[in-house]
């Protein structure tokens, strides 16, 4: 067999980092340069936020194989934590405030993730779905009733609008990087092993409780970050943004993209968020087409758009150099984004 061209490991990391940086810088320049309409800019930022939400939920649903329905709850915890902190630290230099807010939002959501995860992850399948659904609702009701802190139903207003293209997509890139690196380590293998066969994983010395709660916490952390970005994007927060349908929306993206495929999550988050914009001209048929699209994908590709295909930028470049770009081939994902 002809020896094919492969990048060395450090080269892969440099290429991936460079291309990601290039994407973010170009995007920032284009968006800040006023190339798009306001509505388009808003959609682009939403895409970034939904990428974080979908990729983080995919970690629990696709990789760990559990079905939680409370992702919007973690998002809400992060959103209010970030928003309140940002309002309090508005006097600080903007990047310090942003960083503080995002990290605090993530950590707070992760704490909730651990607190919910320890009792909830004893259950499986539909039972876990119901208990996390309940949790999401409890968070929302708490937010409504803690009006002194959260503003209650009238909402939390005048949040500094920190979520620029640069901030959102840097956060999205970091999310993908962190989850990718975790999944391609002994910890990620343990998580996948639990999905594949819990009893066997246990017998191989994998601490089930630890890894389940760990996955839940990481997922919640990034949901919290996305929540804070959402707050900084909207400039105001209302409890109804975090209801049951919000969780379902994210889950739909994960399933449509293909459970366990990070590329799928990114693609689905992009497509489903951008779709309303693309279909704007069809006004009243918009939701019909949206639903039809979901049904069609699920009928013809039940494993989701990308199945379990893992994306590797450098892998594609290698294939191009080796002259077999269009031949189908399963690749080991080297780096993402």
């Amino acid at each position, binding site marked *: 067999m002809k020896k094919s061209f492969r990048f060395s490991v450090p080269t892969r*990391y440099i290429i991936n980092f460079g291309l990601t940086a290039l994407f973010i810088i170009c995007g920032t320049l284009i968006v800040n340069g006023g190339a798009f309409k306001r509505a388009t800019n808003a959609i682009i930022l939403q895409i970034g936020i939904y990428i974080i939400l979908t990729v983080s939920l995919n970690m629990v649903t696709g990789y760990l194989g559990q079905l939680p329905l409370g992702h919007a709850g973690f998002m809400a915890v992060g959103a209010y934590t970030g928003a309140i902190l940002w309002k309090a630290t508005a006097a600080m230099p903007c990047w310090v405030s942003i960083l503080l807010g995002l990290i605090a939002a993530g950590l707070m959501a992760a704490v909730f993730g651990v607190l919910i995860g320890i009792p909830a992850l004893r259950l499986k399948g539909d039972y876990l779905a119901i208990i996390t659904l309940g949790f999401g609702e409890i968070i929302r009701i708490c937010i409504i009733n803690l009006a002194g802190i959260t503003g209650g139903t009238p909402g939390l207003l005048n949040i500094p609008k920190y979520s620029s293209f640069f901030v959102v997509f840097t956060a999205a890139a970091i999310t993908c*990087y*962190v989850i990718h*690196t*975790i999944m*391609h*380590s*002994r*910890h*990620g*293998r*343990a998580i*996948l*092993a639990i999905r*594949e*066969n819990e*009893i*066997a*994983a*246990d*017998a*191989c*010395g*994998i*601490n*089930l409780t630890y890894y389940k709660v*760990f996955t839940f916490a990481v997922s919640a952390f990034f949901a919290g970050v996305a929540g804070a970005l959402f707050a900084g994007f909207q400039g105001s927060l209302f409890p109804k943004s975090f209801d049951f349908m919000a969780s379902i929306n994210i889950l739909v993206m994960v399933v449509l993209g293909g459970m366990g495929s990070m590329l799928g999550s990114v693609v689905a988050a992009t497509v489903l968020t951008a779709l309303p914009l693309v279909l704007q001209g069809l006004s009243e048929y918009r939701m019909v087409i949206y639903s039809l699209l979901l049904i069609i994908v699920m009928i013809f590709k039940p494993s989701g758009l990308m199945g*379990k295909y893992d994306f590797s930028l450098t892998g594609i470049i290698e294939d191009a150099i080796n002259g077999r770009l269009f031949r189908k081939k399963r690749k080991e994902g080297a780096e993402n984004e």
Partner: protein
Amino acid sequence: MNENELTFVPSNARIPKRDLDKTPVLETHHLGIDFGGLTAVDEFNVTIGRTEISGLIGPNGAGKTTVFNLLTNVYTPTRGTILLDGRDTRGKKTSQVCQMGIARTFQNIRLFKEMTVLDNVLVGLHHEMDYGVTGSVLRLPGFWRGEHIARERAIELLSIFDMQDLAEAIAGSLPYGAQRRLEIIRALATNPCLLLLDEPAAGMNPSETAELMENIRKIRDMFQIAILLIEHDMNLVMGICEGIAVLNYGRIIAKGTPAEIKSNPEVIEAYLGKKRA
């Protein structure tokens, strides 16, 4: 993997240098479990030598797999103690018992089907690597070192059964016999001192069974570990086991060497029924 614990042997596999004396690796005292009012296992007393191959046989429903589940703490024993290397396993989780040194395979194969063969073995080697989450996110040197050593070790383990070329194959796509072998390799990867095999020859033809017998002996000699197996194939059990325990209705009805078991009237009765007077 602690390097100074290892020596290299010509067969390409590393032998952990365990003390090879005849002190028991496993002892159980009055082990038993009740499910509600049903006593599934009772008064289970066995002693297994450090490098002994022993068999657990008995008619269907005798409680053999239950014994395995007790030894690995999948079920919590109602009474009795389990001493592994002199250490009590009471109150430990299944995963902790595995780290203490009991590895097992399953009657119905339980592989991580959608993962590659190599990844299956690497899951078994989970605790041989010690880098943390930060190490894997930042790709610190410890991560690369840990992964590199584990990968080499995994390939080495696969080469015992000549499976190193299948490393990148998806585990679920392997033929039946290879899946059984992979499960044994994965169990060995956890560096056990006692290996439990639940019906390793199930679904195998006579020539495959003969090969399996060779392999079980080979594993024992290479790794110097104790092996306890449940099996219905009497040729295999009588051929390789040094000690046999016969279980019926949750109780041990006979213990001894293959020759003793073969001529024991109680065993014959359990399997074939009583002769009418």
